[in-house]
């Protein structure tokens, strides 16, 4: 059985595991950690649209993440219901992504990186300083979680399932996007922008739409984050958050969809679970990143696939070569 045909059963197994997670994990703390992994995976997947498929490295995505969260939080504080808050959050993030795109696409490469960094920092600065609106570093409290169709989301398993649904929706959308003509043209602009231009594609527009798409899903993860913590403060928009998201994407592997998910899992587990056992977890996280780069520069997931293939081939060679070598075709 070669690894390719193992893919479908593997996916089915993964889905079953995810769907039954609250049962086999048990403790609500770990269920909550799983919810966090999923919501950061959505963030990482959104960022990967630009970084992996668009070739545009952004260090300002925390700004978009925060815009969605703050918009919803402030709407809730003003007395509106959850539906209005969520819709506002998504609209605000789309508008912000449009602004980001208009400014950042004036440049590419490090220029793009710097502009997005600056924009992220500006959002952070506004969140801190415009205290009459955002309550500054005291943050905004969100007392309740939404209750769609009367389902209560305040306990860990229920919130986990809601997050899982949104996560699966995101993965599905990402798969559609990757296989679509739009996805192909985005990859084209990443690899050969000039040629795409010559072929008549509007490179700027393709990138801009990708930023909107990425921004939308970033906003979704921002809303999930808001409801998970039921609190938002300016630190959410800090450079560190953008850097962590970028690290999730790069360490997991930008060329795949599984990569950012794996990266998100590594970072969230290190920060939240491993930090309980290892005091210097930051150091260990750094060492893990360096190790990944040294042994698997393309990322964790493609790297594991590579080792698996190498290992499988070596395994097959060891088992069957003698027999195969002496096989003679039977006479007709």
């Amino acid at each position, binding site marked *: 059985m070669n690894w390719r045909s193992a893919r479908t059963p593997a996916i089915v197994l993964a889905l079953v595991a995810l769907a039954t997670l609250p049962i086999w994990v048990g403790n609500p703390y770990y269920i909550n950690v799983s919810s966090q992994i999923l919501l950061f995976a959505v963030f990482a997947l959104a960022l990967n649209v630009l970084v992996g498929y668009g070739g545009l490295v952004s260090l300002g995505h925390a700004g978009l993440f925060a815009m969605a969260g703050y918009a919803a939080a402030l709407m809730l504080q003003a007395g509106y219901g959850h539906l209005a808050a969520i819709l506002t959050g998504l609209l605000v993030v789309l508008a912000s992504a449009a602004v980001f795109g208009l400014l950042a696409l004036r440049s590419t490469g490090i220029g793009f990186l710097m502009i997005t960094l600056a924009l992220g920092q500006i959002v952070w*600065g*506004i969140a801190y300083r415009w205290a009459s609106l955002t309550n500054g570093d005291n943050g905004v409290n969100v007392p309740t979680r939404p209750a769609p169709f009367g389902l209560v989301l305040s306990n860990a398993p229920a919130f986990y399932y809601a997050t899982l649904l949104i996560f699966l929706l995101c993965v599905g959308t990402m798969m559609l996007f990757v296989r679509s003509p739009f996805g192909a043209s985005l990859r084209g602009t990443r690899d050969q922008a000039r040629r795409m231009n010559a072929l008549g594609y509007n490179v700027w527009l393709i990138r801009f739409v990708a930023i909107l798409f990425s921004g939308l899903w970033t906003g979704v993860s921002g809303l999930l984050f808001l409801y998970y913590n039921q609190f938002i403060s300016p630190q959410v928009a800090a450079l560190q958050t953008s850097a962590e998201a*970028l690290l999730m994407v790069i360490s997991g592997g930008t060329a795949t969809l599984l990569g950012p998910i794996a990266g998100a899992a590594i970072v969230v587990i290190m920060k939240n679970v491993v930090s309980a056992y290892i005091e210097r977890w*930051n150091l260990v996280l750094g060492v893990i990143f360096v190790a990944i780069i040294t042994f698997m520069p393309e990322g964790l997931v493609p790297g594991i696939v590579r080792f698996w293939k190498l290992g499988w081939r070596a395994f097959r060679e060891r088992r069957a070569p003698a027999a195969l070598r002496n096989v003679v075709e039977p006479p007709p």
Partner: protein
Amino acid sequence: MLVSINANQAAILAVNSVSLGGVLFLLSAGFSLIFGLMRIPNLMHGSFFMLGAYFGVTLLDQKIGMNSWLAALLSGLAMAVIGGAIERLLLRRLAGQELPQVLLTLGLSFIVADLCLMIWTGDPWQPSPPAQLRGAFQAAGLFFPIFRVVIILVAVAIAIALWLMIDWTRLGAMIRAGVDDAPIARVCGIKVSQLFTLIFALGAGLAAFGGVVGSPFLSVYPGLDAEMLPLALIVVILGGTGSLLGALVGSFLIGALFNFGQAMLPDLAYVILFLPMLLVLVLRPQGLFGKVQA
């Protein structure tokens, strides 16, 4: 919104702008060269600055009592060795791959930050300036700290030394060739890989030297690396990558923007450095003195 300042305050701010600019130059000159020549966004540059400053703290500790300049030089040399090793062993394998370089340098910066916390604890350290340079001289009733003025001279001296090296020596010519067109430089027989190691080491050493020189003024504490790195990025973006003159002008410009901006436009304090950078990037992406990339 706009706070007015009087002439006395303007004088103090002007002097401080130039001395902050001096420290920023030492920090960003290396980054500019590294990015200009090697196209590596060295996200551990702030870590070199901070680690160098911590080395300085240990060397300047009363028990060892080394001369401040000697401490700065030693720290710079130590960091140059470390930087060279990192380039040779880890970064070289990632030539041209921007994202893995980002991951590697960020991962290394986590490691350095945590090691510094383990070794030097979370307490802030602020070494005293060299004995002869303590105190301030008074002019027109205002105090100008001597040490800060001397930093300006040191930064300018280093800038001149770097300029002489780059514009007047054979090594400098090779570096300039590498910055302009690395593949062709290789074809001409220039050992570009060795140059890369040298430049990375030089950049790291300069940052460390800057860290020690700046420590009586900025102090040394966990988180210094994360504060300094965006400043280096802003200077290099404004001034243009690969250009020493750009790094110099950019540093003084940022020093002035920081000082006068924080004083006169306190509401914009958080964004006072990013707004001009944004403007430059949007209007003139190659920076003030950079060359348009092919």
